[in-house]
């Protein structure tokens, strides 16, 4: 139970900082000074102090969506093995459930967007659902590929087996699955080249179009939850393929401390890589995204095939 609690607190506090680090890296690489790593937290504080706004014609779905989004992100943060493989909540949800919970968050936001009745809200929701539908096959087939080695989709079991035998990761199966998962994570979190989190141009925006009507504390919740989703997914990627330092079993407080430091470092490195990659890349056209996702699905399928035919 403490493991889950540590993870939730770490993700809740650390994820805006991850966004700050990524923005800072981008700013420096683009020759700007940047606003500093703490800027996302300052933004959240400012938004929380503003008065809550209800746009005309919106209802309970619009108001509940940010809560559900943040709720799913917190549950996922508690379930996924980031700091320790034996969280109390580990048994209740596996990799399938984690992806489904994240999808539930996206659905809540899409319904919030549709509830406004504006063209922007509908457009964002429509695009988000299209991407979600196309991402799903890649995720589940990658999960399939990862579960074969262990014979289970339980996240704790997968990570523990990698900890016990770190070299087993260096196989065609893992490499293919890792590449497929990276593409999926980029699509799920709405980063370049699938979506650009810092644009407000109607031709290109997906995520920002859905949340256009949100303001004040609601917007703060959404920003915070999006940051949490990104850090949880990056942390999951690190745990699945490079679980060095993660606390296994009934580990001591020291081991948990080491695991926290390791997690922060790994996620920070992944975030910096992602931000640096974004500087050198342009956003894809909306209708080129299916090709990217089809490619990632093929990689995932190859991963499963490799696990059988190369075994």
């Amino acid at each position, binding site marked *: 139970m403490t493991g889950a609690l540590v993870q939730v607190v770490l993700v809740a506090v650390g994820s805006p900082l991850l966004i700050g680090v990524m923005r800072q890296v981008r700013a420096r690489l683009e020759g700007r000074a940047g606003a500093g790593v703490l800027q996302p937290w300052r933004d959240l504080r400012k938004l*929380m102090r503003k008065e*809550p*706004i*209800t*746009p*005309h*014609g919106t*209802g309970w779905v619009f108001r509940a969506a940010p*809560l559900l989004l*943040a*709720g*799913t992100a*917190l*549950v996922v943060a*508690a*379930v996924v093995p980031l700091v320790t493989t034996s969280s109390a909540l580990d*048994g*209740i*949800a*596996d990799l399938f*459930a984690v992806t*489904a*919970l994240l*999808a*539930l968050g996206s*659905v809540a936001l*899409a*319904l919030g967007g*549709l*509830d406004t*009745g*504006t063209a922007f809200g*509908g457009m964002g*929701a*429509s*695009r988000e*659902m*299209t991407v*979600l*539908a*196309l991402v*799903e*096959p*890649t995720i*589940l087939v990658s999960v*399939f590929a990862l579960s*074969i080695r262990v*014979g*289970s*989709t*339980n996240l704790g*079991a997968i990570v523990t087996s990698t900890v016990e035998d770190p070299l087993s990761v260096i196989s065609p199966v893992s490499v293919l699955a890792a590449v497929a998962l990276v593409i999926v994570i980029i699509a799920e979190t709405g980063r370049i080249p699938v979506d650009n989190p810092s644009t407000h141009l109607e031709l290109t925006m997906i995520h920002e179009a859905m949340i*256009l*009507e949100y*303001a004040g*504390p609601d917007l703060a*919740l959404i920003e915070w939850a999006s940051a949490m989703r990104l850090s949880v997914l990056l942390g999951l990627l690190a745990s699945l393929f490079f679980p060095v330092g993660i606390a296994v079993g009934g580990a001591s407080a020291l081991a948990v401390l080491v695991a926290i430091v390791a997690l922060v470092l790994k996620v920070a490195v992944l975030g910096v890589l992602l931000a640096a990659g974004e500087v050198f890349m342009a956003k894809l056209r909306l*209708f080129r995204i299916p090709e990217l996702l089809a490619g990632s699905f093929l990689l995932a399928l190859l991963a*499963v095939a490799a*696990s059988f035919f190369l075994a």
Partner: protein
Amino acid sequence: MNLVGTLFCASLAACLLSACAALLRARPLVTGVGTAGAGVLAAGAGVAALSGETWSAWLPDVLPLAGVRLAIDPLGGLFIAITGAVTVCAAIYGIGYGKAGPLPLFVASMLLVPAAASVSTFLVCWELMAITSLLLVLTEHRRRAAVGEAGLWYAVMTHLGLVAILAGLVAFAAGAGGESFEQLRAATLPEATRDLAFLATLIGFASKAGIVPLHVWLPRAHPEAPSQVSALMSAAMVNMGVYGVIRVGLDLLHGGPAWWWLLVLAAGALSALYGILQAAVASDLKRLLAYSTSENMGLILIGVGAAGFFAAQRAPALAGLALAAALLHVVNHSAFKTLLFLAAGSVLHASGTRDLDALGGLRNRMPYTTVLFAVGALCASALPPGNGFVSEWLLLQSLIHALPASGVAGAVTMPLAVGVIALSAGLAVATFVKAFGVGFLARPRSPEAEAAHESPPSMLAGMGLAGVCCVVLAVGPTLVVPALDRVVPGPEVVGGGLMLRLAGVSGVISPLLITAALLLSVVGVLALVRLLSVRTRARRAARLWDCGAGPMSARMEYTATSFAEPLQRVFDDVLAPESDLDVTPVKESAYLVEAVQFHARVPDRIEHRLYDPVIAATAAVGDSARRLADGSVHRYLAYGFYALIGVLIVLVVIA
């Protein structure tokens, strides 16, 4: 007569009494309560049968020559229980919705199909079910011309299906030398007869289950029938197709070669994908739900096919798991599809339209229906904490554990099947976000939707009951799964308790705890927000962002068609949408445009490519055959004479 038999017979009697009451023009309350009572009794009989009690009867005098044989085992009991439960919801709902006279007879025939224990009894009940449902589909034929067309499609498809089942079962019975299911089970047949029996019955059962490419009746008949009938057809009748495949393939024929089941799996996969793609681009609410039925039946057949395949590969634990997953999905699908069709009926009742493009804003006008539809949509899109998620999770678990055991065929099939299930799940999410988000949220898109009102209490009660079933199945699948274990031959596959723990392979999940954690964290976040926003002020109403152009009209909202446009474009090659652009220029000049008309529709491509040519050819043959009958008596006498000569010659040659 034991408990199962007593309850079952009482339920049939209640159906007959309600049907008589309907004939005597009794009030809807009387027939509705009678039918609901029959449903309760049938559900009780089914549950009693699931707990292990069996019942059989032989009534030699009811049908000439063969007599009627009935037997209820756990498998039949499951389908009887589902039909009974759906009947309760639909009958209570029907009290306020409108007349559907032969409904009790339809229910009785659906209860008899899983209880039939001989070929003749089964076929008679099957046909009875087809005819009563056809009558119900035609209920509103005076109001709309489309009803008659839908009825014609349904009648033709269901009877072609009957012919296939008849051929298969008759060949089976002839080979076995007897027609009771006992004799069929004991028979040893040559391989060719077994293949013929299985394939012919598979075609017939697949057409009843709405499996692509035999699904064409489904998206026509379900929207045109009254909504409680749609619910019964979509949540109970199509299940009988699955029942037939399991009964004939896995029970009477004791499984078979792996290719049978790979065929079933492939048909299921095709159906799942095609069904949900059509649902994703449909803008008629009930048509969307009908295609979603096609999808879910496809998912169930994937499970059944995988079960047969694993059994053929000698992996009984996996086979049991796959079959349990398929049956759990049957139960779950029935629950949420009942709810969704009833809610769609309420929308139709309140606004007079099923067109999502004209709906919207029902959230304030029909608050209870909106919440209930949201529950159904959550379940149908296979997201936690809905019930669809649990059965799809089980199905995926059974497929991903197949890999080492099932050889090259499994290694190629299973990843693709997982991909298909995943894509159909993803598209289902998009479909139901569209159905709920466009149909119920935002602002009304037409005066009809503007004038919508909440349904009467009886309709809400029917929907509420279905909603409660969905919620119970979602958080407590461990209450249902042990009962399913009794249907599945072999060892127990799923352990119960707080967690859903797989027995043969490793896998564990707890829908109850996921729901609890989700609730807890949402409440926690809410408390945090309340705590942190120091100056808690009332929410201020504000204008929507309209680019500074003044208040937006409802015409500027996204519609269902525009919501599905990206998906339609991505799957352009599969869906082949049609669009016409008519530009009418002003008389004086070709460059000045007077009117522009744009039509876009997504026709069912399989119907277009596969059925239209066959129908055209049949019509041509019929037309040319008309020349044979020109009204001349001499000619008709000559036909008779030549036919007689022909028969005599044939007899001479044969003898």
